């Protein structure tokens, strides 16, 4: 069986005053039935990549195959096979939820009944509400329902949860999980690392139009060398520039400055912390802050690029 998606050396340059190289040689392979995440900061090229995969944007160069087919040869078959939720579609305000789903459903040879797509996203009670009266989260769920109504083998969701409140995000996560359980292949873009960690079987971390890391969230986190992060700050030390003493502490796998503080990637915090306290005492330094947490994809991104996914 061919992979759900195969991308080789994809490049896209937008013609602008200085041309924008949005995608610069990207490779991907997505397996059938997995939920695959594209994780990256604003402007990384996620939407550009996804819209090329969806066949609504032409690449500058490179090859794209979906389910063993290409857009050039099998456009109509591929259109039937994919479902799409764009980053920022606003549906017609004066149609109701059901009318919108039904209209999109009519474009497909074989689709799911509109009512079923509606139920899949839990919007039954908004069935006859005008689109203009939906909340942000409901509108996003409608977008997912519209993506589902053609009963696609391959589902593209571009930042489905951006801008939603935590409760709406959780609702959408449940919907996406249940889709994966039904054996759909899902490509999800996001810049929320927790979302990617929870939902995706595998994640490609994208930065400046390239994949800079690939693997399951656990693999990526493990690549840091430790599952935990110990963060501390010293009161009377101006700014720790020399990280070597901390790297020498037991069970520490990595160290990096984080503002005024220092973050250590460690395998066993209960071993590192007493050693860290000893070290501070020996150098007459006082801790102003100490915390530990599980390492996340955010830490992976920071360790790879020195930047955060979202600049807050």
């Amino acid at each position: 069986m061919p992979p759900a998606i195969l991308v080789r050396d994809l490049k896209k340059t937008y013609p602008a005053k200085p041309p924008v190289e949005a995608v610069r040689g990207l490779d991907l392979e997505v397996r059938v039935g997995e939920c695959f995440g594209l994780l990256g900061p604003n402007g990384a090229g996620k939407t550009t990549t996804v819209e090329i995969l969806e066949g609504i944007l032409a690449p500058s160069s490179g090859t794209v195959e979906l389910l063993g087919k290409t857009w050039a040869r099998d456009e109509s078959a591929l259109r039937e096979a994919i479902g799409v939720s764009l980053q920022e579609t606003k549906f017609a305000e004066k149609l109701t939820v059901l009318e919108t789903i039904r209209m999109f459903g009519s474009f497909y040879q074989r689709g799911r009944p509109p009512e079923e797509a509606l139920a899949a996203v839990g919007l039954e009670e908004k069935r006859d509400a005008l689109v203009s009266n939906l909340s942000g989260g409901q509108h996003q769920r409608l977008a997912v329902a519209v993506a589902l109504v053609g009963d696609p083998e391959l589902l593209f969701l571009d930042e489905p949860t951006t801008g939603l409140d935590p409760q709406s995000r959780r609702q959408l996560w449940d919907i996406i999980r249940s889709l994966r359980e039904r054996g759909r292949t899902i490509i999800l873009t996001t810049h929320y690392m927790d979302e990617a960690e929870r939902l995706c079987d595998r994640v490609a971390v994208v930065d400046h139009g390239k994949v800079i890391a690939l693997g399951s969230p656990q693999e990526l986190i493990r690549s840091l060398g430790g599952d935990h992060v110990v963060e501390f700050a010293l009161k009377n030390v101006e700014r720790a520039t020399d990280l070597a003493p901390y790297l020498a502490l037991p069970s520490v796998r990595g160290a990096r400055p984080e503002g005024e503080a220092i973050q250590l990637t460690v395998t066993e915090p209960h071993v590192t912390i007493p050693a860290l306290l000893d070290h501070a005492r020996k150098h007459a330094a006082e801790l102003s802050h100490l915390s530990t947490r599980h390492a996340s994809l955010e830490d992976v991104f920071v360790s790879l690029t020195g930047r955060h996914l979202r600049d807050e």
Partner: protein
Amino acid sequence: MSDRNPFHQLFLARMRDFYRQPEVIFWVFGFPILLAVGLGIAFREKAPDEIAVGIVRGAGDEQTLAAFDAKDGFKVKLIDAADSENELRLGKVAIVVVPSAEPTLQFDPTRPESVLARARVDAALQRAAGRVDPLSLREDLVTKPGARYIDFLIPGLLGMNIMSGGLWGIGFVIVEMRSRKLLKRLIATPMKKSHFMAAAIAARMVLVIGEVTLLLFFGWLVFDLVIQGSWAFVMALAFLGAFTFAGIGLLVASRARKIETVSGLMNLVMMPMFVTSGVFFSSERFPDVVQPLIQALPLTALNDALRAVILEGADVTSQLPRIAIIGAWGLVTFVLALRFFRWN
């Protein structure tokens, strides 16, 4: 069944988008009727104005007064000699008579109503003094439906409505969908682009039937407008016009990403035709040098053809040149629009 028919679903979406917006319904159906009512009243045919005559108090004023009969359209009043200049200047009277054996007429010869009054006052005074007219004239009054301003106006309003309906209903709506990323979302489905276009045009056609019927029915009901030619021909012209202005709307909308852009473009296209194509007044008022240009505009051809059928009962053959102009605009703009159209 129709639930799974994409053309039908797209058509329904267009219609729902229309009839669920009361303000749009007003602009399409209500506004032309309001214009017809307003302009019809403002320019209605009035009974000829009364002739206001001032007679200066003094010897013989009673006798002079008796020479004027209200039946003949005179409105006479006595004034003081000192006031006569003022009354004339303010237009309260059209003419002043100073009675005497040789009465004096005071009036401003540059004012048409004063010149008219002079002739009428002269005749009244002469007859009162004993003149006998050698000839008695009979009058046959010919203000008939078909020759009034409202008759001129209603076909023009039809044309205007067909134009703005095509530009707003197609051009504006499409750019709005583009700016909402809805067009992009639609082409990510197996939807046929031809279905999308056909549905938008079909919805326009259905609305045009309503627009034309309503305005003509209203014209008949309120202003006794009579359609001299064939109804079917009027409708066919309206369809042709709707098609052409849909094409122009599509062309205007083919690349614009923002609503502001398309609104500006549409005004740029419509304003010259509003003014020159004979909506509110005849396009023949413009100088001869620009006439070939004006006559080549689609709205001029549409308005002239509609007037010819509605007011003169013209047949299809006589209107072929105008039909050709309208059709050519439609064809050319459609081809260009489809060529340049930007879906995402």
